[in-house]
């Protein structure tokens, strides 16, 4: 049965409102919550005045700029307290990789302020770190492509035959490039290290089909919902701008095993390759909803709505079956706004839209 949030008079805060060539999940998360009938207040948490979701009419009721996660817990809590002086927040859904750990570590402080969330434990979060996957999962029967963690570019020439070129070069948090030669590997090593720090992940290429799975784990080893998709349109940045829901018992079982090992609580996205050798490989676990999460809603599982209820401590039955063959295609559209909106956000670091309605 579809989740109905129409009777819920609360305030929900969501981060990550940028929807461009590298879209963040906040806008689709809010749309799914609204599509569940939610009529309460939505607070958008932003880092940058150019996040496009700020400029959507009838979308977020209030917008507040947050300090970057690197500013630390004190700056974060201080900003939260400022916001709470202006509006209550009952539920918060962080959607960006780099901020999730802060929300996990500050769960208790947030809870004392009346802010609820549905997130994994810190231990669980750290196990899915890209630098840990290749050591933690294979002994538990989950294949991960051969991986080397490098902290010095000179190590690239010492990579053995287990990780031949071409290979994938990845940052700890973001970005991945295909390097065809050691020289390209060195270039990407420094490019990524400058932006995201060390170590840099060198991973064997697995030829095959890629699948992405959006999941809400129940924290006990089970799943409240799971929708797998295959990307149909991929941008030059590797982002899926179109995809179709698939139904594959082997893939479902592979995902279920990963979640049961981690006892993951909350939203996540699995990136999986089915190699041409027939083996399923775990590539990444992203600790938040993906930007394509509305596909889950379209396929019959409104996972963001389920997370709202779980954040409030309510019982939620496992979401119903998803409909294979449901597809999405991303559509870019210009938003027209007055420059004063940007001025308000830039100067005041906040925007109150509710009073305008």
């Amino acid at each position, binding site marked *: 049965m579809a989740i109905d949030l129409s009777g819920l008079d609360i305030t929900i805060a969501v981060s990550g409102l940028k929807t461009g060539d590298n879209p963040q999940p906040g806008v689709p998360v809010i749309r799914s919550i609204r599509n569940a009938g939610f009529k309460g207040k939505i607070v958008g948490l932003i880092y940058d005045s150019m996040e496009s979701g700020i400029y959507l009419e009838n979308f977020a009721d209030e917008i507040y700029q947050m300090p970057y996660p690197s500013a630390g817990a004190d700056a974060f809590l201080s900003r939260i307290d400022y916001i709470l002086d202006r509006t209550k927040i009952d539920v918060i859904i962080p959607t960006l990789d780099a901020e999730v750990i802060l929300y996990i570590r500050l769960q208790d402080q947030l809870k004392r302020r009346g802010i609820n969330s549905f997130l994994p434990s810190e231990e669980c979060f750290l196990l899915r770190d890209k630098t840990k996957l290749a050591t933690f999962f294979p002994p538990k029967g989950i294949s991960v492509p051969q991986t080397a963690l490098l902290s010095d570019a000179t190590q690239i020439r010492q990579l053995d035959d287990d990780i031949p070129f071409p290979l994938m070069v990845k940052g700890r948090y973001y970005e991945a490039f295909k390097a065809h030669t050691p020289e390209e590997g060195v270039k990407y090593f420094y490019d990524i290290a400058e932006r995201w720090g060390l170590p840099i992940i060198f991973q064997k290429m697995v030829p095959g*089909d890629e*699948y992405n799975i959006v999941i809400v784990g129940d924290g006990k080893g089970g799943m409240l919902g799971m929708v797998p*998709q*295959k990307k*149909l349109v991929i941008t030059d940045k590797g982002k899926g701008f179109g*995809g*179709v*829901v*698939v*139904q*594959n018992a082997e893939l479902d079982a592979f995902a279920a095993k990963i979640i049961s090992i981690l006892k993951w609580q909350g939203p996540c996205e699995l990136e999986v390759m089915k190699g041409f050798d027939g083996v399923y490989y775990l590539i990444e676990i992203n600790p938040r909803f993906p930007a394509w999460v509305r596909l889950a809603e379209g396929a019959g599982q409104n996972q963001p709505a389920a997370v709202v209820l779980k954040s409030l401590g309510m019982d939620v039955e496992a979401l119903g079956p998803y409909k*294979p*063959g449901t597809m999405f295609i991303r559509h870019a559209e210009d938003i027209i706004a007055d420059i004063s909106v940007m001025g308000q956000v830039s100067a005041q670091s906040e925007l109150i839209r509710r009073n305008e309605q």
Partner: protein
Amino acid sequence: MNVNKLQNLAMNDNGFIFDPNTGYSYTANETGILILRKLASGLDKDGVRTAVREIYEVSEDNFNSDFEHYMLMLESLDMIEF
């Protein structure tokens, strides 16, 4: 011949085929869809030939040649196994 995977395909009369197992989609002409549906229903080569020749004027030689070619293509797409 193992045609289990064909039984999971979603096919429409316009020739669009979606494999929910892999996410791949294909197109086939009217004859191609007819053959896929007959194979998925469990007919063997003789049964498919009879069904096709009931609708289309085709010699046995032409049918055999095109059918074998089609089967090889389906096998290379991992949709059937010999």
